Structures are given as C-alpha cells and as structure tokens.
C-alpha cells in the first residue's frame, strides 16, 4: 500500500492517534503500539507550557514516538482565538522542536465546533511563520478550499463533534471535499466511534484518520487500537482495489440457466 504523506514525510500507518483519556500512560503506550500509528497528537494548553510543567508526560510521549519511528503532533486544543492559538503554537514549536501543528480553534463550547474565521486567521499567520499546519475544521467545502489555498497541504475535516463517537454525520459533504480537493492530504478527524467509521472514511478515499476517544474509552483500549489499525487497512485496500458500483437490481453472480426467462431480472 502507498504511504501517507504529511508535508513530505512518508508514514507507513494512516492512523493518527491522540494521547488523552487513557486509564494510564502505560495503557496509552500499549494502545499506540498496537494501533501501528506513527503520529501521536498531544495537547499542552492545560499543562502550563510556559513553565514546561508537562515535561514528564511529554518525555514519555517522545519515547513512544521514537520507538515507532514517528512524530509528535502538538495541538492547540482549548484555544478560542487566533491570537492565543498562534502563541501556543510558537511555544509548542520551541518545546517539541517540530514545525507541525494541529490547529484547533474552538468556536462553541457546547459541541467544540471549530471557529472557521479564527481558524483561517491563525492558519495564515502560522503558515507565514513557517509552520506546517494541519487544521481541524468542519466539513464545509469552501472552508477546506480556503485552508488549502492558504497553503495547508493537510486538511482535517470532522466526522462529527469531538468525543461524540457519532461517526460520519455527513458523508455527502466529506465525499465532496475528497472529490474537489484531490491533491490535498485529507484526514478525517474527530467523532469516530467504531472501526467501521474509520473504514468508511478510507473507502471514500481519505488519506488517514485521526482519533482518540474511540480507543481511549473502549473497555479494552489496546484491542480497540488494533481493530482500528486493521479497519484502516481494510478501507484503504478496498479503495485502492476499486469498489464496484452500486446497482438498482440484483444480478446473480452465477447465471441461472434453469430459470425461465420471464423469471430472470
């Protein structure tokens, strides 16, 4: 299978995984290893990054990504304005020595919906500053187009609101974005609940899936991580293999020669 391309970096796994909500760091590590993922996101907003107070868990995560020959993807979760987002992104670049940033600017506290206006604004500032921006956005075609035009090579529309596990709420929108932005790296982010959701995204031709709660909140996070890894592979292979078109009526796979012609469809 082809590898996932994120700003020129080739990755074997198409799964990006979050590092929150696990029962313990050790379970998190086992789940990440089982998933096969090579990109681990982390949030630093609440850990007093100015004082680098999250050092211990950051170091732990660094060790995991080194082990899987992968990358840390710091995010700006919890930010609500372009200004604070840009400040946090700069801090995370210094701390983690990476210019990758998952851009997350929340516009609504209730469903954690991204704020498209602040997001565009922050993306522009960060791209001008040399960042490789991976914006988390809604499934709005025009917004995705604008982000792409700004220079975001990776676009990450949501499947449904963060942590809801509701899966792909609007497949039509997601398919349209795929069709209209054929050259963008599209990663479906947020709202994934079960492995079949991830599989569906890959069958649509998405380049990857980013998730966290679906694994961390499973009864057995490690097994669920493995299931997601396999679901992504199945979906990707299905897409590459070429999915047969749907038909209105049934066609027998084996000709039924003994059926009278007026009984045949």
């Amino acid at each position, binding site marked *: 299978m082809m590898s996932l391309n994120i700003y020129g970096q080739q990755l074997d796994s198409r799964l990006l995984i979050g590092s929150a909500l696990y*029962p*313990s760091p050790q379970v998190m590590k086992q789940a990440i290893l089982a998933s096969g993922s090579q990109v681990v996101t982390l949030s630093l907003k*609440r850990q*007093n990054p100015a004082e680098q107070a*999250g050092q*211990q*868990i950051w170091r732990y995560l660094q060790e995991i990504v080194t082990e899987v020959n992968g990358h840390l993807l710091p995010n700006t979760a919890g930010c609500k304005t372009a200004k604070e987002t840009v400040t946090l992104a700069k801090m995370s670049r210094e701390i983690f020595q990476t210019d990758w940033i998952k851009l997350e600017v929340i516009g609504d506290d209730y469903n954690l919906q991204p704020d498209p206006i602040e997001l565009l604004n922050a993306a522009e500032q960060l791209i001008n500053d040399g960042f490789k921006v991976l914006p988390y956005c809604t499934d709005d075609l025009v917004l995705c187009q604008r982000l792409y035009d700004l220079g975001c090579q990776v676009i990450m529309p949501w499947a449904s609101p963060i942590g809801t596990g509701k899966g792909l709420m609007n497949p039509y929108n997601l398919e349209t974005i795929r069709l209209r932005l054929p050259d963008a790296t599209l990663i479906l982010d947020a709202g994934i609940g079960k492995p079949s959701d991830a599989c569906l995204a890959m069958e649509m031709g998405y380049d990857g899936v980013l998730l966290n709660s679906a694994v961390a909140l499973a009864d057995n996070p490690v097994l669920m991580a493995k299931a997601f890894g396999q679901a992504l592979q199945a979906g990707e292979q299905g897409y590459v293999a070429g999915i047969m078109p749907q038909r209105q009526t049934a066609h027998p796979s084996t000709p039924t020669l003994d059926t009278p012609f007026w009984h045949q469809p």
Partner: protein
Amino acid sequence: MNIAIVGAGLMGRLLALSLLRGKQSENVTITLFDKDKKLAHNSAAYAAAGLLTPLGESLHCEPNIVSMGFESLRLWPALLDSLDEYTLFQQTGAIVVSHEQDKGDYQRFVRHLNNNYPEHKLHTLDRAQLLELEPEIGRSFNQGLYLPQEGQIGNRRLLIALRKQLEKEGESSNGVNSLNWLSECEVLAIENTELISKVSYQQCGINCSQSFDLVIDCRGTGASNKNSHRACAPLSDLRSVRGELFQLFAPEVNISRPIRLMHPRYQLYIAPKGKGFYVVGATEIESDDDSPMTVRSAMELLSAAYSVHPGFAEANIRQHVSQCRPAFSDNQPKITQKGSLIQVNGLFRHGFLIAPVVLKQVLALANNRINNSIDDLPYNNYLCTEQPQEEVI
C-alpha cells in the same frame, strides 16, 4: 534498631505509628524526616477528599486497586479506633449521577460495573428513589446509581489525629523519645547498602548525616527525578499529576454522602465533610505544576457543584487547593526494597483508598528486616513488591 522514615504524609505517619506500636518497639527508634511543617499542607493527603469509593474509581484504575479499596474499607475502622482524636469515617454508600448530555459516559460506567464487578451490589435509582436517599439532589436528576458499600474518611482530620498520636506515643517514660520528628528538614541524599543506609539532610541551614538500620522512603512526588537528584535514590518513571479542588462552606446544602458526577474529562465529586463543609474536586492534569488553581478549573468544578445543587451558589469558598499526586506510568503503587532501603510510592489519587493495605505490606517487609525473618507478605496478590532475590546456592 534505628529506623528513618522519609516523608511524613499519610504513609509516613501511618508507618511511624505502626512501627512505634510493633512487637519490637522497645528496641526501635524512629526518625521521621519531612520537608513540610507538621501541618502537612504540602502533602498530597492534605489536598484530597478522602473518598473510599473503589467502584467509583474503577473505570480509571485496574481491578487490584478496587480490591485493595474494599480491603482497606474493612481495615480503616480498627485503625481509626486506635487513635485518641475523632476522625470522620462513613460507609453509607455513594451516589453517581449524570446530566443528560453526559449520559453516554454514565451508561458506559454502568456497563463497566456490570461486566467487571458483577459480585458487587449496585442499585439503579429512579427519581423517587433518588429523592428518598438524597432529597436535595433528587430534584436535579431523573436517575442515579447507588453504590452501597462506598464511603469516605476525614482526610485532614486524620493527618492531625496521627500527628497528635505520634507526639504522644513517641515520647518515652525514661526521657528518651522513641520518635524524633524532624519537620522542615530536607533530605539531600540516601546512600543505601545491604546493612545500613546513610541519610544526609539539611535542617535550619545546617547539613547533617546519620546512619540507619532501615530507611523507609515515602516522599511521594519528592522522590521523582525532577525533585530529587541522583544521590537521593530517585524513582525513575515517577511523575506528577496535578489535581485541584475546592473546600466550600454551604450550610444551605444538605447532602449526606459522596456524590460523583459523570464528566467527559474528570472524575468530579462532592464529598460532604460535615457541619456544612464540602470538598469539590478534582481535576486531573498531566503536569507537575503546583501553582494556584486556574480559572478554567475553578469554573468547571464550581459549575459542576452548582449543577448538582443550586444551594452551592451562596456557598463560601473556604479554600482552593492544587497539589501534585505521585504516579508511575501504570498508575499503580509500588514497593521496592534494596538492602536497607524500602521505597513506597505511586499511590496516585488512591492514597486513602488503599493506604491500610499498602501499610500492612510495607510493615511486613519492615518487620522481616527488624526480626531478620522471611515471612510472607500479606498482599502480594494485589501489590507489586520488588524484593532482592535470594541467591540460590
């Protein structure tokens, strides 16, 4: 036998008292080192709610912690009865409730209990049953879960009671104290060998050192790599997890047992501490920052309390506390012995929940050392206890 205990938080105090009362106590002299004052305001135990709710915690911990929690619930009453000062101990159950938006988390919790702990009683409550148990919160919720075996302890009262008991029992009739409590005294190094360990410390700006037959290190986050240099026997893999909580005075609120509120990120609880006092906690942030509570945490905790009972709107905020809890990467407690040094750490957010079990295990280890015996440890099935391997000849 000269014994040093490093760290006078919950474990240090319990251990000191138990060793003073042990069979060999006439031959035992204990030195208790602590960076903090005797009031222990910087200890993780002070910044806790003293919940004894094994099932309530079970979603975020391994089954052995739940087992230790139930065993500790059985052990606490005798421990508390042996103290002169009164400490609150309550075992009248706990209630779990959830707002409609967080119903998914609630259902996941119920499923988790049914799948993993079918042997324990839990009662689902409808609105009428909830009203009967807790009349003042029944108005806000249509359903709840009653876990009848859960309880709580007066955590701060216990720290005080243990201090007074240690001061009393540490004094000897012949004028030689069997307990020497060095508070505001920082341990700079612990050098351990098979037979003795040397503790170097600083008190009032003066550096001293002393040798002991046995050192028991229970410093909590103080033993992490960051807070403790190499000479101090730091525990690698030990990290800090920030927790924040409020103490509220709400005489208008009448809640009689711990209430747990489902929340997508934290385990929120309201613990009634009597006479109108409530503890509302707690955040859980992967950070070693112990600076004062953030506005965001304050809003989350207080709005949670208010949503459970509007009477909290007029409560006085008596205190906001933030403190770091010590945890290993598997969030499990660990006891290790290297020659004359025993280290116990990583009690995380489960200090009061499991302390009596950890205490018995460490005491057994210490007594083997004191008596030169090799008796079995009581809780090897629950607790990871690393001992030096006997050489096979």
